[in-house]
């Protein structure tokens, strides 16, 4: 779900459109059986909604779908939007997991990234979340920020490990066009992070988090045992999901679709024609198989051959023998006859191996 922070007056209407889309979608998928095992509110900043709106949104969505009793409900948040009352309220309506976009615990780097919170703001928010009862918190981190040194990154990791969140996502910085930092780099005020340095930082985070007991379970994700994101694992296993809201993507029954990305167009379209789908794409069995490999190899444990053959009626090496052979020869893949996974080196070179599965 996305785009909660809209111009005044839009968010109310947008919220109603979301609720309506949930109702319509649930009616469509009810016939398929099964139940919703996860709910994820993210994209934009859902916590910028008022408590009242958040409660209404989540309860309406839960009402619409068949929901598992142990559903994982994640809400994405920025540190500055998390006051104690809101946290309590989220906890009360059943939110089980928080994902906080902290990016860094270095004030200078946060400023460079154009973030309005400080490292201290985050620590306070994190403590409030613990106090409100959250026992499953993710911290989103960014490394490879222009000017960032290995020492800076170590310091941020020190602070993260001191807080001991259950889950950590770490991404190398991608300079998004037209951001402040992008302009500063373009105009030469800031030197972009050297690729080798960025890779060193990646493997440094991997080593330190693993030493501290985190399991590296996806290219960019680490979790204490049992705290892997169940929601994101659905994406990486390429199992069915429904996305609600502007720009949201869904994958159900071999078909992918995405909604209009503009929130106003999205809401108008939901109210006028009961759907905001802008693009549809049918996935053949071959597309699905290759996507299962491409997405599945993101997981550090890789793709399980028996799961794959149960799903498709063919083993991984019968379907992709050539791609496997090539990846193994290049030292990017490991294949033990039951699981196919990326090697440590292959993690940062995964595209080189994955494209052979297309």
């Amino acid at each position: 779900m996305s785009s909660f922070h809209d111009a005044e007056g839009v968010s109310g209407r947008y919220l109603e459109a979301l609720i309506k889309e949930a109702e319509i979608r649930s009616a469509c998928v009810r016939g398929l059986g099964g139940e919703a095992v996860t709910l994820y509110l993210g994209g934009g900043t859902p916590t910028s909604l008022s408590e009242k709106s958040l409660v209404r949104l989540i309860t309406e969505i839960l009402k619409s779908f068949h929901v598992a009793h142990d559903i994982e409900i994640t809400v994405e948040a920025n540190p500055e939007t998390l006051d104690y009352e809101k946290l309590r309220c989220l906890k009360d309506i059943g939110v089980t997991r928080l994902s906080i976009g902290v990016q860094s615990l270095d004030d200078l780097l946060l400023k460079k990234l154009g973030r309005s919170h400080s490292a201290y703001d985050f620590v306070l928010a994190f403590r409030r979340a613990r106090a409100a009862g959250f026992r499953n918190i993710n911290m989103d981190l960014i490394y490879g920020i222009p000017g960032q040194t290995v020492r800076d990154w170590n310091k941020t990791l020190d602070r993260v490990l001191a807080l001991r969140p259950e889950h950590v996502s770490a991404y190398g910085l991608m300079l998004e066009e037209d951001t402040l930092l992008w302009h500063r780099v373009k105009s030469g005020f800031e030197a972009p992070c050297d690729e080798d340095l960025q890779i060193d930082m990646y493997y440094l985070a991997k080593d330190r988090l693993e030493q501290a007991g985190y399991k590296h379970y996806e290219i960019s994700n680490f979790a204490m045992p049992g705290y892997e994101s169940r929601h994101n694992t659905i994406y990486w296993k390429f199992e069915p999901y429904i996305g609600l809201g502007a720009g949201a993507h869904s994958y159900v029954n071999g078909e992918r679709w995405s909604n209009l990305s503009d929130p106003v167009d999205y809401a108008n379209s939901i109210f006028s024609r009961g759907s905001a789908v802008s693009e549809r794409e049918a996935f053949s069995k071959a597309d699905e198989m290759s996507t299962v490999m491409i997405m599945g190899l993101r997981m550090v444990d890789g793709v399980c051959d028996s799961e794959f053959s149960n799903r498709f009626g063919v083993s991984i090496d019968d379907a992709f023998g050539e791609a496997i052979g090539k990846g193994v020869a290049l030292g990017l893949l490991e294949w033990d006859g039951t699981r196919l996974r990326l090697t440590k080196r292959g993690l940062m070179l995964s595209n080189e191996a994955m494209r052979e599965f297309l």
Partner: protein
Amino acid sequence: MTEQVLDSMDLERERGITIKAKAVRLEYKSSEGKDYVFNLIDTPGHVDFSYEVSRSLAACEGAVLVVDASQGIEAQTLANLYLAIENDLVIIPVINKIDLPNADPEKVVRELQDAIGFARDEFIFVSAKTGDGVQEVLEAIVDRIPPPSGNKEAPLRALIFDSHFDPYKGVIAYIRIVDGHIAPGMPIKLTATGKEFEVMEVGVFKPDMDETEYLSGGEVGYVAAGVKNVQDMRVGDTITSAASPAEEPLPGYRKVRPMVFCGLYPVEAGQYENLRDALTKLKLNDASLVFEPETSVALGFGFRCGFLGLLHMEIVQERLEREFDLSLITTAPSVIYRVRLTSGEVVEIDNPSKLPQSTKIQVIEEPFVKATIITPSDYIGPVMEVCQERRGEYKDMEYLSENRVRLTYELPLSEILLDFFDRLKSRTRGYASLDYEYIGHAESDLVKLDILLNNQPVDALSSMVHREKAQERGKQLVEKLREIIPRQLFDVPIQAAIGSQVIARETVRAVRKNVLEKCYGGDVSRKRKLLERQKRGKKRMKQLGNVEIPQEAFMAVLKVD
């Protein structure tokens, strides 16, 4: 009316140039009320195609010299003008584009007067765009150019000045009838080959082919005689009557000799036969194109092709890719080297990788050209600099007007192939023009520069360089290749070597990162597209051992400065 009626090839229209000469017949009623028929031939101007110009001029009585009023005369203007004078043609100097804001017709007149000595009143000022002065040109043709002098009663003599191949009618020869006449049903004989055919069709160009009953003395038109083999009806040959052949053939042309060679290889090995068919088809209409099969360790099966010059080479490549939908790898162009071996034998080498071992070589000779460069006098210094950098030897300098100069240099042709014209243009803000002609082979101190990728020599990247420049060029070349060759999964050393001695080295560092770090439910399509794009990029590369090389790497030698 369509613009650029005679430049009908897409390439000609896009580039605004004439590649192939075109004939057209024009009926004209003069101001005195008399009817005339003009047989006109539009010719290319570029130095590569001067043979087309000279052939066309041999078929004419006069020439209209059209000079751009804003550009003034260029090196090739003079080259073509001298050709016309050698052919004893009446020349009508026309200054065109006088409507342009920066036109300076008077200056151009002075330049032409100084160069050739035209009288002031010979000039006609024209804007082809507005139509100004066009009438005067047509009147001048009537007044100044003599009618054809041939004898209509004498035995047939017709000069073939061009041809094209028609899949139904066979060879269509473009002819100028000098004596006699030609008509369908008539048995004809080709003087050079001695072959005989029966005329099926004759006609004129209007500008499309327009069938007529016959062609007679002085006329320009075409003849089709069911000739299936282009070699049987060669450009420059004389057609005569098989029944009563003329005693003397017309003076022919010197056979054109390709000056520039390169390897053409299909990107996908499966396209080799298609490439052969395409070259064969192009050759039907372009006798100056030569090709023969060639094998490269790096590139597999392809063809060594010979061209008149760089523009000709570029045009052929582009036509192969466009008209025949081929994807090609082109190696850097080479000239013909004449190698005298210690055994006394002399061999001609058009591909540096074929050079014999250095211990067996006594002397290497390379082709030299006389280059004429016309430039505003402000740029004499830079022009001389470029020529000197390219091993040029100064011959002459002459002022065409107070601020335009003609410089003459002798240069190795190979230096001209290396981006010479572009450099000349960039150092003179685009004002310099160039014309050159082959003057002969001469000895040079040349060595073969080899390139090794991942410690393996790549034959298609070998080039001949002057010994004194080898070090520098080797360095530039490996640097350029480092930029062009994408990072692979391992370090790729690039070396330049003369024999076994490595003179320059660079390394393409291994790629360490190629990953989409954030990839969730909304990123599936984006991820697939990214990988598909990468996969396509890979496909376009040539695999040498385990190194992947993009096509443009093989032209890198042209791009160093």
